[in-house]
């Protein structure tokens, strides 16, 4: 309405981003206009370059510019253990801890009955193929304790257990800095179940 056509188009495009409303989109568009031409070209080419070069790894489905990805190609990784996560950002969160040295498998989502998202829309078939064809000893399910996460874990457990491998799920409990008094029943009961000797 009050914006010249190229600016209106830029605002419209920013509004397609998750969590970006009209006001934030306007702020971002005006920020772009205030940048130097060199910086704007740098941003535009970074977007195009990432979109063109970053793909899913054919083995673990993590985002990478090479195939297989850096983690799958590394000799230092334990190939006998696969950690299953829902999204690439979950993998990055686990990598930040520097505790885990095995390989990963990204499901690219979770089973969501209310959204009609079923197992066939995830990379579950590829996971079973990996477990079958590689010498896997343990599958760790690092999946959020939500309703969708629980449904996915139940389904995966049903498929993986008959293959005779160890299937584990990451522990639940109180977050660091959390307050016991405010924890919900499910968290507390699961924290009790998963207690360990000190």
């Amino acid at each position, binding site marked *: 309405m009050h914006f010249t056509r190229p600016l209106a188009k830029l605002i419209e495009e920013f509004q397609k981003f998750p969590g970006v409303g009209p006001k934030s989109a306007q702020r971002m568009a005006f920020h772009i206009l205030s940048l130097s031409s060199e910086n704007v070209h740098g941003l535009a080419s970074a977007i195009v370059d990432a979109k063109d070069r970053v793909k899913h790894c054919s083995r673990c489905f993590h985002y990478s510019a090479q195939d297989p990805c850096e983690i799958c190609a590394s000799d230092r990784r334990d190939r006998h253990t696969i950690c299953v996560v829902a999204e690439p950002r979950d993998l990055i969160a686990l990598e930040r801890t520097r505790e885990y040295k095995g390989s990963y498998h990204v499901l690219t989502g979770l089973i969501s*009955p209310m959204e009609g998202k*079923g197992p066939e829309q995830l990379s579950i078939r590829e996971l079973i193929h990996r477990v079958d064809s590689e010498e896997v000893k343990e599958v760790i399910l690092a999946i959020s304790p939500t309703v969708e996460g629980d449904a996915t874990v139940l389904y995966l457990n049903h498929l993986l257990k008959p293959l005779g491998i160890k299937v584990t799920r990451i522990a639940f409990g109180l977050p660091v800095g959390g307050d016991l008094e405010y924890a919900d029943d499910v968290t507390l009961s699961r924290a009790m179940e998963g207690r360990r000797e000190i």
Partner: protein
Amino acid sequence: MATYSATGINVGSFNLGESDKIVTIFTAERGLVRAVAKGARKPGSKIAGRAEPLNVNKLLLSTGRSLDIISQAEGIETFPKLRSDLVRLSYALYYAELTQHFGPGLAEENEVYFDFLRDALRRQAEQDADPAWLGLRFEFGLLDLLGYRPELTYCIICRKPLMDASLGAFHQDWGGIVCKVCMNNGQNDLAQSGDNHSPSGFTIRTAREITPLVWRHLILAADEKIPGNHLSGKTAKPSIKQSLTAARRILQGYIEHRAGKHMKSLDLVADFEDL
């Protein structure tokens, strides 16, 4: 900012911004309410566990401009057993999806429906009864409250009492069973008109044939006096299970016809039952 208290069952949620969630809640006091659970996706959030679907909470809500905000939440019931059985969890989420869709139509029955839904979730979580059987009973209860209860004992056209030998088809448009004679008449009308709709209004598309065993399941499920554990999930014979599945499909087809949309959670219920 004005506040109010409510007791509600979470029937859905989706992400908002960086760390918030919008939760759809069926409350005993105000029916279906949508409210923002601020910071519910952060690991240390006090509200994260309580914003999960199928939890029952006592809430303090602040009235916002477009959406209310959850100020405090105290957990009452969480149905943990539902989270260890994929089929029962799928049915519970199907109840939630039905509530999201039909909730606005239950405005005058808030308290009744709240108790009904909570009891239905408890039964699905705690009882040994076949989850499909419990699902069928829930569907009848919901249709009752909505005023869409199907006619199962008399032909919806000629009003003659139905018997095993006279069963024709379940007709979704008319909300009940048509006897064999009326069904044949309707089909003859259709053949003569050469169209999908006969002059009498009979359509093949919305009519499903019904067998005596399937009919009995529907009659039993519709009767509130029959105990909830009538059919055990572990002991039912395959033939009984098949006819129960057929009865469920008839009623689910009728509900979807009334809703005018497909219930997405049903796809996974069917997938998981086959596991």
